[in-house]
């Protein structure tokens, strides 16, 4: 199967600390990959590197056949490489509907118009409503983001990501900070992601990971020590030694 997204040999050091060492991953359309690893392993850094928030020291990133290694974040997003943030980054004074409409307008090329009324595009409004309603945000979508529950804010992050209609979606701990009673809502949203979309999800919740992923990758201290079937991950000697052996003690956050 040809790769829609190909990350080859990405390396990044902060000072003396190498946070990603020669990390390579390939994704085909429709992939569901989970990236796991202890806190501080470099998972978020990997997302920052491939989305252009950080510049890698070495490595090559190819999206849909194009080398995007030197492109900035904006150019990567417009080409269909979209991420969510581990800690929600939303505009507190705006509503979920505002966020999603803004994203749709961006996709349509109308986000920077001055002589237009924000919220006056009924096609964008209809689409935003559908996305938010499907995520169960029907009641929250007209309230300010700063006033809704954190679990709902996580869903808004997902709604924005969907509004981009991405080719590749990178989810950085979509369930982090969500009350366990709300996790099923996130999980249902993940199940409904478009089937052709390639998805990488970072998470610590092994139950969630095992239900979601068709493939699991394990990052330990900046190195990818495993990339294969979920059934094999627990049997892999390197993973056991480096990671699962201490899994029972690993904390859930960050």
């Amino acid at each position, binding site marked *: 199967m040809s790769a829609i997204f190909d990350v080859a040999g990405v390396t990044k050091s902060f000072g003396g600390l190498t946070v990603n060492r020669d990390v390579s991953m390939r994704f085909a359309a429709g992939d569901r990959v989970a990236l796991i690893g202890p806190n501080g392993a470099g998972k978020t850094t990997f997302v920052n590197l491939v989305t252009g928030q950080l510049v890698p020291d070495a490595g090559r990133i190819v999206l849909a056949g194009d080398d995007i290694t030197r492109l900035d974040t904006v150019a990567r997003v417009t080409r269909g490489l979209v991420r969510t943030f581990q800690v929600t980054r939303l505009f507190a*004074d705006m509503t979920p509907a505002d966020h999603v409409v803004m994203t749709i307008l961006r996709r349509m090329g109308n*986000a*920077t118009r001055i002589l237009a009324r924000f919220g006056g595009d009924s096609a964008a*409004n209809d689409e935003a*409503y559908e996305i938010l309603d499907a995520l169960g945000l029907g009641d929250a979508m007209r309230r300010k983001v700063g006033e809704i529950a954190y679990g709902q804010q996580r869903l808004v992050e997902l709604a924005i990501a969907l509004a981009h209609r991405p080719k590749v979606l990178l989810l950085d701990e979509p369930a982090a900070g969500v009350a366990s009673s709300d996790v099923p809502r996130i999980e249902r949203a993940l199940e409904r992601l478009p089937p052709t979309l390639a998805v990488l999800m970072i998470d610590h919740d092994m139950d969630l990971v095992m239900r979601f992923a068709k493939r699991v990758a394990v990052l330990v201290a900046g190195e990818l020590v495993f990339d294969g079937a979920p059934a094999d991950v627990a049997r892999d000697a390197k993973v056991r030694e480096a990671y699962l052996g201490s899994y029972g003690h690993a904390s859930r956050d960050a």
Partner: protein
Amino acid sequence: MTMRHPPLSDAALGIWPAYRRDVYGILVVFAASIAGYFMFPDSLALLTRIVSIALLVLSLDLVVGFCGVATLGHAALYGIGAYAAGIVCLRAGITDPFLLVTIGAGAGAGAGLVMGAVLLRTHGLPQLVLSIAFVQLVQEGANKASAYTGGSDGLAGMMPAPIFGMFAFDLWGRSAYLFAIFLLVVVLAILAVVARSPFAMLCRGAKEDPVRVEALGVSIRPVLLRMYAISGAIAGVGGALGMLATQVVGLDGVSFELSANSLVMLALGGVGSLYGALGGTVAFMMVEHMVAAINPFHWMTVIGGLMIGVVLVAPRGLAGGLDDLQRRMFGRNSETRR
């Protein structure tokens, strides 16, 4: 339009629901300005100056309130608009007031682009320092280029033509004030449209979290630069109006002091609210005028006290304070939008 769901916002309901509050707001400003004409016929020069400075403060609000730029040099754009209109009036024989205001707007917009290009390289304290350096440089430039600007004596002797060839800029300042009201209303109408555009939403977003805006797929710099140009145009209109009304342009129009005062007026009225910017200017300049008449040396003390009071009682400025008061009196308003 196929709406199978409740509207997402007032703006989704149509043009009138979206701009209704702006229309009311502009009507109130218009009525109050006209009332000023009849109530203070002897103070029209002061009222015109208030409008001129209000345009500067509105323009400042666009970069501070909407984009989060830290600047203590915004009067540079106001002064450049005033000088451009004044020089053209004196040297090129262009005397039509509308044309002169347009020239002031153009010069302000150009200067805004340059200033934006400089200031948007950094943010926070370095940005503030750069803005002060910028206005000082412009002022020094105006001082040195005395062949064009009259140096420290300033520019004088401009003879703008009567408005529509009928209403001369006379000694009583009636034409000037009515012209000022006209400009204010036009600028407020333009800003109402700008403030409710997708573009303004992006500016607000960039102010809060630039990383998030880029992750939405929008480059921030071109957006903020455009806002700087719009802001410069409005400051330039204010400067040109000041030139037309007083027929003098001086170095104080491009000063750090005017820049700092305009920021105080904005903070007083409420950052991010266009009507707050207006209210802050009126309050500041009225107090300045009244206290300066009683005790010319201590009016700044009174302004200082007023500022401290506002910060303690209503940290979001007069506009924010009124907002809170309304909420306390009438309960939470159900609308989610600003």
